[in-house]
């Protein structure tokens, strides 16, 4: 489903990603952990082309992200085509980024209505179903500012799902939440994983990674230090850096 090959990314002279290789199969939940500044969020943002990679390739569902390759030459995709690629990839942000001037329901309906041009009644029905699924039926007509952080993040997940993505990216979805609200968001993500959604989750929740993840990737200094089955990596890390990081967070 997702394949990354030797991905490099720098901001000015700062090299954030220094050759990332990764493969995520259909239906797999891949958790990415690592200290802050290790480049895990940047890598996630490269997958839907919010950041342009400087070298390497990323494919999602067989499509090369951001470029078209023809006759051994790379052509940058136009904005329209980039937007089209993003439609199949849902993203959930650390700071929710809900649209504050729209109600919860409008937030979820916006993209299917404007981007896919589906009929309003159909979109509305699907949005209500999604909000029901994340346990927010009572909140459809309120504004994001009136919701708690956990509720906002669940709305954000519903908003991403409304586009019927084949892949979901989670960028530290629980890091901005009060501790007692983390569980409700993780529960929604667990359900999603159980339904077979392909997910890449950048997280600090080692417990979630162990319980729900099919694979675990430990990143540090812009490279993948170690990856494998989550229980395996957490129980017996092979690298010293992984060991010292896990010691601090566990």
């Amino acid at each position: 489903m997702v394949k990354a090959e030797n991905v490099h990314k720098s901001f000015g002279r700062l090299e954030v990603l220094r050759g990332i290789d990764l493969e995520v199969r259909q239906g797999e939940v891949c958790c990415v952990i690592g200290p802050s500044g290790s480049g895990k969020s940047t890598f996630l943002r490269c997958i839907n082309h919010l950041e342009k990679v400087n070298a390497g390739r990323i494919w999602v569902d067989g499509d090369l992200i951001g470029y078209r390759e023809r006759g051994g030459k790379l052509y940058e995709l136009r904005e329209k085509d980039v937007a089209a690629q993003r439609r199949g990839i849902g993203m959930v942000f650390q700071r929710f980024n809900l649209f504050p001037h729209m109600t919860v329901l409008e937030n979820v309906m916006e993209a299917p209505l404007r981007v896919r041009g589906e009929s309003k009644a159909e979109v509305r029905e699907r949005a209500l179903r999604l909000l029901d699924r994340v346990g927010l039926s009572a909140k459809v007509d309120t504004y994001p500012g009136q919701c708690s952080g956990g509720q906002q993040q669940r709305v954000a997940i519903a908003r991403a799902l409304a586009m019927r993505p084949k892949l979901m990216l989670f960028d530290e979805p629980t890091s901005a939440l009060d501790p007692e609200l983390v569980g409700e968001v993780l529960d929604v993500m667990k359900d999603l994983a159980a339904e077979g959604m392909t997910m890449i989750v950048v997280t600090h929740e080692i417990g979630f990674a162990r319980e729900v993840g099919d694979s675990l990737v430990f990143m540090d200094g812009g490279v993948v230090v170690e990856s494998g089955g989550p229980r395996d990596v957490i129980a017996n890390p092979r690298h010293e850096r992984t060991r010292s990081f896990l010691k601090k967070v566990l």
Partner: protein
Amino acid sequence: MATDITDVRARPEPIKAVPVRHPGRWVSVAVLAVLAAMFVHVLVTNPAFQWSFMFTSMFNPPIIDGVLRGTLGMTICAMLLGVTLGVVVAVMRLSDNPILRVVAWLYTWFFRAVPRVVLLVLFGNLGILWSRLELGVPFDTQLGTLFGLSNLHLRIGGLDSRDLLSGFLAGLLALFLSEAAYMAEIVRAGIQSVDPGQGEAAAALGLSKGQILRRIVLPQAMRVIVPPTGNETIAMLKDTALLINVPVIYELFFQLDAIGKRTFQTFPMLVAACLWYLALTSVLLVGQYFLERHFSRGYGQPARARLKLRGLAAEQGGGGQGVAG
């Protein structure tokens, strides 16, 4: 029980203290009263004010016409066009295209650097530059001589510029072009005040750049854009008095000035101008107050308190989810 103690205890007697005296206040009131009396004395006793003449002539039909067409009409037209062009220039200024960015910068630089009076006189005299305005291929005659054709004219059509570029239109052009430069800066500040995460979230959903701007960014920028735009509108209304320099005939100040000159009653007509502009801007100030209240809904303190109350009510009524600030 702990609560009983407060019930049993008698309330202490309210404090009855001698308040601090403010002699300075009384002195200032006395001084101001004398000054006000002097001012009223001048207004009432000086015959040069010609009050009855002023009140009868400040509502003459040509003056009302000037208020409607020149002052209000021009303000509305110039602001509508100015805001529209201002949004365009602001978007150009923030675009990825370096050419558009430079053009937008040059535009705001020029129109903010030249005073409005100068612009108005300049546009009023553009007829000197071209007697006719024509649409066609630029440098056609010059290109013609280059290729050995004399008197080559590749033009579609034209208008007499003295018809087009005089009076109302020249004034409108000068005012709205200069207003657009100021509005562009206001709109740019508004757009930049929106959290970049908003655009990213919308982009991640697959919305196009235009959709992100129209649906996500601009509505949120409005809260920052509206109050200064109200100020701009009030400033524009006052600046219509400058149209006398174009000149624009159907305009309040031009008409009042004309009556003053014709009847040799210059001063009463200047006072009439003050009263007219006071009245008109006061109306706009009231409008601005309500507009600002409308666009800051959901953000201000009273609104937030109201929302909280509603949330609490919903919680008690329907067992909904908790509300967090």
